[in-house]
C-alpha cells in the first residue's frame, strides 16, 4: 500500500496540473470573465504549491505568503470585474475576440 500514501510530490503534481489548466484556459477561452477565472485558478495552484513547500521545509514563510496571495487576488478581482463591467456597459459584450480597436 506504499503507493497509496499521499506525499508532497502528489500535491505538487496537482498544483502543476491546476496551473497548466489555468494557463491553457487563459489562452483558449474567449469570454473575459472565464479568462479571469482561469487566472484565479493559476493563483490557487501557486497557493497549493506554496503550502506544500512550506510543509516540506517546516517553516512558515510559505504559508504566510499564501495569505498575501489570497488578499491580493481579492483586490485584483475587484479591479478586474470593475473594468469588465465598464466595458460591458459600453459594448454589451465581453468577448475578447471583439476587442480590436487597436491594430498596428
Amino acid at each position: 500500500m506504499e503507493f497509496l500514501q499521499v506525499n508532497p510530490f502528489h500535491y505538487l503534481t496537482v498544483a502543476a496540473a491546476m496551473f497548466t489548466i489555468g494557463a491553457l484556459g487563459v489562452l483558449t477561452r474567449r469570454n473575459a470573465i472565464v479568462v479571469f477565472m482561469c487566472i484565479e485558478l493559476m493563483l490557487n495552484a501557486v497557493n497549493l504549491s506554496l503550502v506544500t513547500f512550506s510543509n516540506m521545509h517546516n517553516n512558515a514563510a510559505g504559508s504566510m505568503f499564501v495569505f498575501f496571495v489570497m488578499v491580493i487576488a481579492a483586490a485584483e478581482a475587484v479591479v478586474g470585474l470593475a473594468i469588465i463591467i465598464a466595458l460591458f456597459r459600453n459594448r454589451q459584450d465581453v468577448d475578447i475576440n471583439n476587442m480590436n480597436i487597436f491594430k498596428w
Partner: protein
Amino acid sequence: MQFNIQDLIQTMPLVMLLVTGLLLMLSDAFNLRSLLPWLAGLGLTASLVLALPLQPGDQAIVPVYNNMFLTGGLASFVHIALCLGALFSLFFIQDFFQRAGKVVDEIYAILVFSVIGMIMLANSNDLAVTFIGLETMSICLYVMAALLKTRQSSNEAGLKYFLLGSFATGFLLFGMSMLYGITGTTQFTLMSQTDMSGNILFLPAVLFILIGFLFKVSAFPFHNWTPDVYQGTPTPLAGFMATASKTASFIALGMFLHQTMPVLDEKIFWILVGSAVISMVYGNIVAARQTNLKRLLAYSSIAHTGYVLLGLASGKEGFIAVIFYAFIYTIMNVGAFGLIGMNEIEEEDAEVSRWNGIGLRKPWFGVAMSVFLFSLAGIPPLAGFMSKYQVFFAAVRSELYVAAIIGVLASVVGAYYYIRVIVNMYFTKSETETSHALPSCAMSPTIGVFVLAALTLALGIFPSPVYTWIESLFQGSGMLAMAGF
C-alpha cells in the same frame, strides 16, 4: 521576529506617502477637490525630502523589518527617483482631465498608492514583499489605464492590461513558489547562500520569474500589450506608466538577479542578452511605421527596454548605468507624453499629422518637443545621449561587443522616426486648420514642460553629479558587496 521602532523611523518616507494617500482619499470625501493636486505634490515632495541622504552615514543600505525591505543608500535614491517621476507626471494630470471633460478625483490617491507599490517592489529583499509591491503597483496601473470609463479605447486598454498583467503575475508567482521550494526561504540574501544551480527546478523557477518581470518592462516576447495599453490610457498617465513602473521593475529585477545569484547563470545571462537585442531591433523597426505618436512612443519604449536589459546583463557597471538610464528616461519620456497630452482632447488627436506645422504656430511647444525627441533618439548634448552611452560602454566593458554594435545600429534606425516627427512639426504645412485652443497653454503643464526640458538639457551637459551619486551608493552598499558585487 520583533517589532523595532528603529525600522519605523527608517521607513518614514514610505509612511509619509501612505499618510498622503489616505488623506487624499479623505479630502475627496470632504469636498476639497481643488486642493487635491497640491496635497499630492506636497506629500510626494515631503517623502522625497525625508529620503534624502543628509548624514554621511546614510550612504549604506540598511535592511529593516527582519531583512525584508531595504532603506538608505541605493534604496533612498530609488525612492527619490520614483517620487520625482510621480511629481513630474502630476504637472500634466489635472489640465488633461479638465480638457477631456472628466474630472476624476481619485487619480491622485491612485498615483500615490502606485508609487508606494513601486518603492516596495524596487527596494524589497524578500519574495513576498516583491510580490506585494508589484501587485500594489499593477492594480493601480490597471485602474489608470481604464480611467476614462466612457471611452471604449480606455476600457479596452484597461482590460488588455489587466488580463495579460495578471496572467504574467501568475507565472511570476509560480516561479517564486518554486524558488521557495528549492531554498526554503523567501529572502534574497539567504537564497544566495544556497547553491541552487544544481537543482532541477532552478531553471524553470528563474524563467517563470523572468517572464513576470519581462512582461512588466515590456521586453521582447512579452511586449504586445504595450502599444495598445499606452494608446488607450490617458496620456499623462501613460507617461507615468512607461517610466516609473519600468524603473521600479528594472531595479527589482536587477536586485533580484544580483542578490540571489552570486554568479549569474549562463543560460539566464543569454536569455537577458537575447531579449535585449531583439527588443532593440524590433522596437525601433516597428516604431518607424507608426502614425500615432503614442504608439510610436510605446514601440520606442520597447526599444529602450532593450537597451536597459543589455545594461542589466553587464554586471555591476551595467547596473549603475541602468539606474542612471531609468532616471533620465523618466525625465524625457514624462515630458514627451505630457506634451502629447497637451495637444490632445479626443483620442485620435495623437496622430502625427496633427502635429504638422506646430513648431511654427507655437514655437516654444515645438522646441520643447524637439528637445525630448532628440534626447530619446540619443543625440548629444542631451541627457538621452549620456545614458545610452553609459549603457553601451558597460556592455562593451563586459565584452558584449556584438550586442552593443547591434544596439548602436538599432538606435540609428530609431533616430529616423524621432526626427520624422520633428520634420512634421517644422517643414510640413498643416492641412486642416485647427481652430480650437490646442495645444493647451495652462500654467502647470507649461511649467512642467519647462522644468523637464531644462533637466534634459542640464543632465546632458553635466551628467556627473547624478552619475557619481549613483556610483558612490554602490561603493557604500555592504549588502550588494556581499552578494557578488
